């Protein structure tokens, strides 16, 4: 579309030059071209693309065949496999007819934000060589009753005419954030949404195998629990595909996809980065590689190095460095606090500390970045208690060095409380298997504080063996502001003969 415009502009200029060369006044030609251009830009049939005038203008609706391929999507192997299988029904029509298979009408993609649902839908359209019409749920919402339902009808009609025009036999309609219109129908309050939803349901029922254009509706949402049950039943959205946060292997694949066009230094270890980014979504990983490249550019480096990646991880996780000024006294306290976290983290899981930093970032005045090692989905009570100890270590260290605590540990306590509540809710505490609602609050509180105070004591005891390590590390940390995991471990080893043994016994 835009290409055609550029070509027309170039050709127009050429014609004007040619006419002037021949000594013919180019004004009539220019006038004519102007009229043609005006018709082209303002005509209502193209309004969807040019967004000027026309009452059928559909904002943001893209109609094309995307160029994203499935192998450009990192990870999500299972979701991709399932999706491809569903899409094969669109491609192999004859085969499914011989088995008597009813074509799949809808695929619902669910999953946390940034995991590539939209990307999947685009890849699906590319894979099936279908016309791709996309709309967002919010486009169907307007003040006036019936507009949303009308837009649904238009959407399906557009998809059919577009497919016919382009000579394709199938079309994919992608509705992003379908929870806006597909929410549960309850009471009499959201009448307008109900109409929109009813229209969508009837349109989907109208999809039959013998039509010349086969339509597949794909929808994405991250709130599947909110959707109306009529949408979720078989015959509407037949397949529900969960797109999850990527695991380590997938993260590495995503990273390598996004670093394909970037100059990487020799020391960059994508495996390690993938390991350190547990819980990152695809979009966050993309942002991570982007930030790393920006850091490399800021330093005028020709290649992106590992340190840029580790800075970028900090940035994506915690936010940009802030230039908040702190007094020396506060800085020392933060250093003590963070060292406490680091020492206990190293004790419960050797090799897990990847950086201790004193520079304020986002809301935090300092932080310890952990290296999760392996992706984990199951925890024993010991794992959780270890996590609690790491959380409490900051406050314990302050207590040890200064004899008092500060408000800096507020967030740590919150996290610790989360771990405690999951211990109790999972039936790992001494209360046994419980139903949280049937328990009295006092009893749970009692149990929680028992666990917490026990953990705190152990942490405190352990830290008190490392008083001399504190003074050494503090000096380095206060001058350098950053202590890498390896440096920290070197110092830790000097003092930690005994604790390492204890850890091994455990």
């Amino acid at each position, binding site marked *: 579309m835009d290409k055609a415009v*550029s070509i027309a502009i170039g050709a127009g200029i*050429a014609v004007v030059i*040619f006419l002037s060369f021949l000594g013919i006044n180019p004004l009539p030609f220019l006038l004519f071209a102007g009229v043609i251009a005006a018709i082209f830009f303002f005509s209502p049939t193209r309004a969807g693309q040019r967004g000027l005038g026309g009452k059928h203008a559909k904002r943001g609706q893209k109609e094309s065949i995307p160029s994203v391929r499935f192998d450009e999507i990192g990870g999500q192997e299972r979701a991709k496999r399932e999706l491809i299988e569903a899409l094969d029904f669109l491609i192999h029509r004859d085969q499914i007819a011989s088995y008597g298979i009813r074509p799949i009408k809808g695929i619902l993609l669910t999953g946390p934000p940034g995991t590539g649902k939209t990307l999947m839908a685009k890849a699906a359209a590319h894979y099936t060589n279908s016309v791709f019409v996309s709309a967002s749920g919010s486009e169907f919402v307007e003040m006036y009753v019936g507009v949303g339902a009308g837009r649904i009808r238009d959407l399906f009609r557009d998809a059919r005419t577009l497919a016919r025009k382009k000579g394709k036999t199938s079309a994919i309609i992608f509705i992003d954030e379908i929870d806006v219109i597909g929410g549960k129908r309850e009471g009499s309050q959201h009448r307008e949404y109900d109409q929109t939803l009813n229209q969508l349901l009837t349109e989907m029922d109208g999809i039959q195998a013998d039509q010349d254009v086969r339509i597949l509706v794909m929808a994405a949402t991250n709130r599947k629990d909110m959707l109306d049950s009529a949408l979720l039943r078989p015959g509407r959205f037949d397949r529900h595909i969960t797109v999850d946060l990527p695991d380590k292997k997938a993260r590495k694949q995503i990273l390598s996809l996004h670093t394909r066009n970037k100059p990487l230094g020799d020391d960059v270890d994508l495996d390690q980065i993938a390991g350190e980014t547990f819980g990152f979504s695809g979009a966050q990983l993309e942002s991570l590689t982007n930030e790393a490249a920006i850091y490399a550019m800021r330093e005028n480096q020709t290649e992106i190095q590992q340190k840029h990646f580790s800075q970028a991880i900090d940035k994506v996780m915690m936010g940009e460095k802030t230039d908040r000024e702190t007094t020396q006294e506060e800085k020392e306290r933060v250093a003590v606090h963070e060292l406490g976290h680091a020492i206990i983290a190293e004790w419960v899981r050797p090799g897990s500390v990847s950086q201790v930093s004193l520079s304020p970032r986002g809301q935090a005045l300092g932080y310890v970045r952990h290296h999760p090692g392996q992706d984990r989905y199951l925890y024993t009570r010991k794992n959780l208690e270890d996590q609690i100890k790491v959380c409490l270590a900051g406050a314990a260290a302050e207590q040890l060095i200064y004899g008092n605590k500060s408000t800096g540990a507020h967030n740590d306590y919150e996290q610790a409380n989360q771990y405690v509540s999951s211990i109790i809710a999972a039936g790992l505490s001494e209360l046994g298997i419980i139903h949280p609602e049937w328990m009295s609050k006092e009893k749970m509180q009692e149990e929680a504080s028992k666990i917490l105070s026990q953990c705190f004591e152990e942490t405190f005891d352990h830290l008190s063996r490392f008083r001399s390590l504190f003074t050494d590390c503090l000096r380095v940390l206060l001058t350098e502001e950053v202590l890498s995991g390896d440096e920290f471990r070197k110092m830790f080893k000097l003092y930690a003969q005994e604790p390492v043994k204890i850890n091994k016994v455990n």
Partner: protein
Amino acid sequence: MNLQAKTAVISLFVTLGILFGGLLGYQYWFVQKPLEHAVRSTPHVQIKQLTIQHDRVKLVLATDREFSLASHYGELLEEIAPIVGKRQLELELLDHPGEELEAAWNEMAFGVREGIDIQRYSQIPQSVAQVAKARNIQYRTKMDDRFVYIELRQKDRYMYQVLPLHKTDGEVKNNG
């Protein structure tokens, strides 16, 4: 934007190439070739120079002694005219005048131009004959509805004069 600009520039050059290529091709196949053919089919003339522009054609012809303005020129012009079409035609005949002929022409020019201007055409051959006989020069005169043709010969020298009858027909120039 960058990519679009690039596309526009490429399209500009491609279109220019097509337009000017087409123009040149047309001039070669539909103007130059037929002109050359027309001249070749006329005896005693050769092309010395042929310049074709979109609005004008310049044709310089070399003639030999046998060439007769009276009998060949009109024919040639008739053949060239449809090919040249609306373009302005500059047709030059390279003749071979000596001082004698020049002097003779200068003498008779008065009578000839006067004859044309006052539209007493019978005066033209008279004034030519008068001078030519006195200087022993062979001559031939001819007239059609556009031009007066005068051809002077003395030994191996020859001179052609083509004078328009109407001022608007000023396209044939005298090279002498």
